C-alpha cells in the first residue's frame, strides 16, 4: 500500500500514483476521471439531488473521488447546485477526548460544524473574484475563518480550549450553520446546496458517529441536501438514524460480476494510461478482475506491472497480484492495532476468507462453469458473525452480493464473493489446470458462471469450528488486578472494583517515536534530537502549534526541509489513522 506516505517520500514526482483522492489536485482529478461509466453517472446524479443520501462503499472504492468530482463540476456549472465538500478523515484525532473530557460530544459537534463552515468559505473562495464574499460571510455569521481554524486545530491536538474558543464552539449551532450555507448559496447565485460529507463512517469511534448522523439529519432542509459517505453497515450502529426513512443508500462499489464492469473500468484506466490498449488482453482481464471493483486498485496493479522487473509476463502478474493481496490483508489486519477488541473477529474473518477460497477451488475442480459465490444461510449470521463479515466487507475483502432465496422449504441466503486477488493467488478458478497460465486464468474469469451460490454450513469455511462458536470481542482484563472481564458493558472490575474505562487507542499512534517514523534521514533525526529534545514522539509533534516554525529553528533546517519533515510526519499520522 503506498498512499500519501510514499508520495510524500517521492516528492512531487509526476509518475507517483496518488491513491487517496483527497490528495489529488482538482485539475488532475478531472483529467483522471472517466465520467461516462454507468455507475459513475448514477452516483454523481444521486450526489446532486436535493435529498439526503448515504454513499455506501468499502475503503478505496471511489467515494471521495466521486464527491470531489461532483464538487468541481458544481463549481464550474452555474446551473448546478452550490456544493460544499467536507472530509471528516481526521476524526480519530478527537478520540482521546472520549476518555479525558467531560463532554466530548459537544466538542465533536463544534469540530464537525466548524469544518462545514470552513468548507463553505472554501467553496466561495474557489469561485474566482469572490474573495470579498468570504469577508462578508464572516461578518454575517460572526464565524471568523482564522478563529475557526484555531479552534479546530486545538481540538485535533487535544488542547484545552481557551475562553474565546469555548464561546466560539458554543456558538456553532445547526441553525446558524444552515443560515450561513443558505447565504453562501445565494452569494454564489444558486438556488440550493448539496453538502458532501466525506469519510463520515467514523468506524473507530461509534459514539462520534451517532453524533455525526444526528448532525447530518438535522442539517437537511428544503434547500440543503447532505450526502454522507459511509462504509457498508455503518449506519446500523445508530439507533436514531434510519436508512430508508431518513436517507436512501447509494452503492458505489462496482461488482466484478456486473455487465458494465469491464467497459467502465477500462475507461478509467485509459484516462490514466495513454498506452493502456497496448497491454496484453489476458493481463488486462486478470487485473480488472483482481481490482475487485476498486478503480484505484486497477490503476495501481497496472502501474506495478509496468514497473515490475520480473522476467516473464507470468511472473510479473503473479508478483503484482500477490503483492496486492498482501497489502489488502495487511490493511485489514492493521485494524486490530486501532481497535484491539476486534482482534478475534479479524482473525476468524481472515480464516473465513481463506476458507471460502478453498471451498470455491474444490468446487471448481469438478465443474465446467466457474463458481465464485458463497451463500450463507441467514440464520447462521448471528450478530457477532455478521459483524465479522461486515469487517471483511468494509475492508473490501469480501463483496456483499445481496440476499437470495433458494430451495424447499425456501431459505434466505446471504451471498458473498471473496476478493479476486485471493481467488487468483490460490488458482481457485482454474483448479483443474496445474500451470495456471495467464491464458487459462483469463478464460476462467470470462467463463460462464454457476447459476447458484455454493451452499454449505458456515463451519465448513473455518479451520476450527469452535472458533465460530467462541467468536467474541477481545476485552482486555482489568488493568489493575488482571481479572477477566465478564461483559462488554461491564462498568467495574468484579474483583477489585476498579472502574473499567476504554483506553484511547489513538495513544498507540501518539506514542510512536519520531525516529521510528519511516522517511526521515539520519541527519534530520540527529538534528532534531540535538536541537529539539522535547520532540520525541508523534504526540509531541501534534502538540506543536506550528510545526514548521518550530523545525525551522534547527540549525541547517531551512523552510523547505522543515516543511518536508512536517509533511512526512503529517502523512504518517494520516496514514495510521485513516
Amino acid at each position: 500500500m503506498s498512499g500519501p506516505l510514499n508520495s510524500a517520500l517521492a516528492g512531487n514526482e509526476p509518475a507517483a500514483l496518488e491513491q487517496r483522492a483527497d490528495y489529488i489536485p482538482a485539475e488532475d482529478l478531472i483529467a483522471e476521471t472517466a465520467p461516462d461509466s454507468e455507475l459513475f453517472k448514477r452516483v454523481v446524479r444521486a450526489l446532486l439531488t436535493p435529498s439526503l443520501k448515504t454513499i455506501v462503499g468499502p475503503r478505496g472504492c471511489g467515494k471521495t473521488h466521486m464527491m470531489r468530482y461532483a464538487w468541481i463540476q458544481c463549481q464550474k456549472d452555474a446551473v448546478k447546485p452550490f456544493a460544499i465538500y467536507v472530509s471528516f478523515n481526521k476524526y480519530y484525532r478527537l478520540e482521546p477526548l472520549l476518555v479525558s473530557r467531560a463532554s466530548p460530544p459537544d466538542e465533536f459537534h463544534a469540530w464537525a460544524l466548524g469544518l462545514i463552515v470552513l468548507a463553505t468559505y472554501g467553496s466561495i473562495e474557489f469561485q474566482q473574484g469572490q474573495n470579498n464574499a468570504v469577508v462578508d460571510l464572516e461578518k454575517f455569521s460572526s464565524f471568523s475563518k482564522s478563529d475557526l481554524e484555531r479552534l479546530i486545530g486545538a481540538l485535533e491536538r487535544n488542547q484545552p480550549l481557551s475562553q474565546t474558543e469555548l464561546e466560539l464552539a458554543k456558538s456553532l449551532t445547526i441553525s446558524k450553520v444552515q443560515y450561513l450555507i443558505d447565504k453562501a448559496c445565494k452569494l454564489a447565485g444558486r438556488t440550493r446546496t448539496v453538502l458532501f460529507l466525506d469519510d463520515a463512517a467514523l468506524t473507530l469511534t461509534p459514539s462520534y458517529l451517532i453524533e455525526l448522523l444526528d448532525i447530518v439529519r438535522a442539517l437537511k432542509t428544503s434547500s440543503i441536501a447532505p450526502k454522507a459517505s459511509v462504509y457498508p453497515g455503518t449506519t446500523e450502529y445508530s439507533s436514531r438514524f434510519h436508512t430508508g426513512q431518513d436517507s436512501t443508500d447509494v452503492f458505489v462499489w462496482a461488482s466484478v460480476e456486473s455487465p458494465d464492469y469491464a467497459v467502465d473500468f477500462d475507461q478509467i484506466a485509459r484516462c490514466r494510461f495513454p498506452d493502456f490498449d497496448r497491454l496484453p488482453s489476458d493481463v488486462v482481464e486478470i487485473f480488472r478482475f483482481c481490482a475487485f471493483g476498486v478503480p484505484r486498485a486497477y490503476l495501481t496493479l497496472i502501474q506495478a506491472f509496468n514497473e515490475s522487473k520480473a522476467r516473464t509476463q507470468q511472473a510479473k502478474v503473479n508478483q503484482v497480484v500477490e503483492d496486492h493481496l498482501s497489502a489488502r490483508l495487511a490493511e485489514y489486519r492493521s485494524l486490530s492495532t486501532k481497535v484491539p477488541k476486534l482482534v478475534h473477529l479479524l482473525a476468524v474473518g481472515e480464516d473465513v476468507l481463506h476458507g471460502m477460497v478453498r471451498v470455491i477451488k474444490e468446487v471448481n475442480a469438478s465443474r465446467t462453469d466457474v463458481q465464485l459465490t458463497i451463500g450463507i444461510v441467514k440464520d447462521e449470521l448471528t450478530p457477532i458473525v455478521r459483524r465479522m463479515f461486515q469487517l471483511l466487507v468494509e475492508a473490501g475483502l469480501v463483496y456483499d452480493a445481496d440476499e437470495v432465496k433458494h430451495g424447499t422449504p425456501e431459505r434466505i441466503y446471504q451471498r458473498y464473493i471473496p476478493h479476486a486477488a485471493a481467488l487468483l493467488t490460490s488458482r481457485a478458478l482454474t483448479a483443474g489446470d496445474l500451470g495456471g497460465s495467464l491464458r487459462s486464468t483469463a478464460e476462467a474469469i470470462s467463463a460462464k458462471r454457476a447459476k447458484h451460490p455454493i451452499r454449505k454450513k458456515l463451519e465448513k469455511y473455518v479451520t476450527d469450528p469452535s472458533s465460530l462458536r467462541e467468536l467474541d470481542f477481545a476485552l482486555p482484563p482489568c488493568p489493575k488486578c488482571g481479572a477477566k472481564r465478564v461483559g462488554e458493558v461491564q462498568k467495574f472490575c468484579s474483583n477489585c472494583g476498579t472502574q473499567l474505562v476504554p483506553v484511547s487507542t489513538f495513544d498507540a499512534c501518539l506514542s510512536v517515536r519520531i525516529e521510528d517514523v519511516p522517511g526521515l534521514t539520519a541527519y534530520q533525526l540527529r538534528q532534531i534530537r540535538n536541537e529539539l529534545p522535547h520532540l520525541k514522539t508523534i504526540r509531541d509533534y501534534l502538540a506543536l502549534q506550528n510545526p514548521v516554525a518550530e523545525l525551522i529553528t534547527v540549525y541547517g533546517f531551512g523552510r523547505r526541509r522543515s516543511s518536508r519533515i512536517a509533511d512526512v510526519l503529517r502523512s504518517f499520522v494520516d496514514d495510521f489513522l485513516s
Partner: protein
Amino acid sequence: MSISADYSAITNIGSLGAGPCANTVELFDRSYSETATTAIDVYLENCQAINKLWINLDNVAPEFSRLLLLGYVSAVESYFRTILSSIIKTDKKASADAHSYTVPFGAVLYQTRRSMPEALFEGISFASEEAIRKALGKFLAVERIPDDIKSSLLEFEKVCHLRHCCVHRFGKLGTQNGIALGLESHSRALEKPLALGKNELGEVASWLNSFVKSVNNFMFRTLLDRSTSEKNDYRIAWKWMYSRDRANFARFYNLFSSCKDGVPSPDMRALYDRFVLAKKPRSKKSSVK
C-alpha cells in the same frame, strides 16, 4: 396474663440501655492512616471498596442500592474537601485568596497547622452543584466554569437530589426534589421510592467516577494555566527545563495524580513535557535564514 397499666405502651421497646454512643471516641478507627496520597486516589479507593460490596451480587435490593448511593456521594463530598484543602496548602495564590475566610475558634485551638484548611469547609456540604461551583470560584478563582464542567455539575445536582431522598425520606421522592428535577415529568413519581437496579446503580457509580476525574483534570489544568498567567501575582517563574522546574511541577502533579485508577496517570515527566510544548513562550524565530 398480666395487662400493663401503661396506656402509652403502644409498642414493645426492648431494652434501651445506656445507648450505643456512650463513648463515641471508641467508635472511630483512630489507628487509621490514609494509604493513598492524593485526593483522587482516596476517592477511588473509597469507591472501589463500595463497588466490591455489590458488584458480584445478581440483584441489588432497592434498600441496599439507596445506601450505596449515599456512600458514593459521600465519597465525592470527601474528595472535594480533601482536594480543596490540599490546594490551599500547596498553591500560593489559593492560600493568599483564603486569608480572609474565617474558621471556627475550636479549629484554631485543636487542629494542627497542616489540617487547618479543612476547617474552612466545616459548614459546607459539597453535595450540590451550587456548593461546588461556589467553591471553585472562592478557592480557585474560577470566574467562568467551562460548559462541559458546567453541564456535568448540573447532572451531579440530579444525583444529589436522588441522594437527598435517600437520606431524609427513605428514598421517596419529595416535592422539593421533584421540583428541582422537573415536577411536570416527576409528578407521577412523587412519594414513590427510588429503586435503582444493578445496572442503574452501576451507571450512577461509573458516572460519578468519571465526573470526579474530569473535575480533577479541570482543577489541575486551572492551576497550571494560571501559574503561567501574567495576571497572577503568584505565578511561577517556569524555567522550561525539567531539572529546574521539577520541584514546582511536582507540587501540582502530586496533588492530582492517581496511581490507584485502572489507568494510572502518565508519569510526571511526560505531563511536564506536554505542558512545556503547550505553554512555553515561543522564541521569535530570527527571520534571517
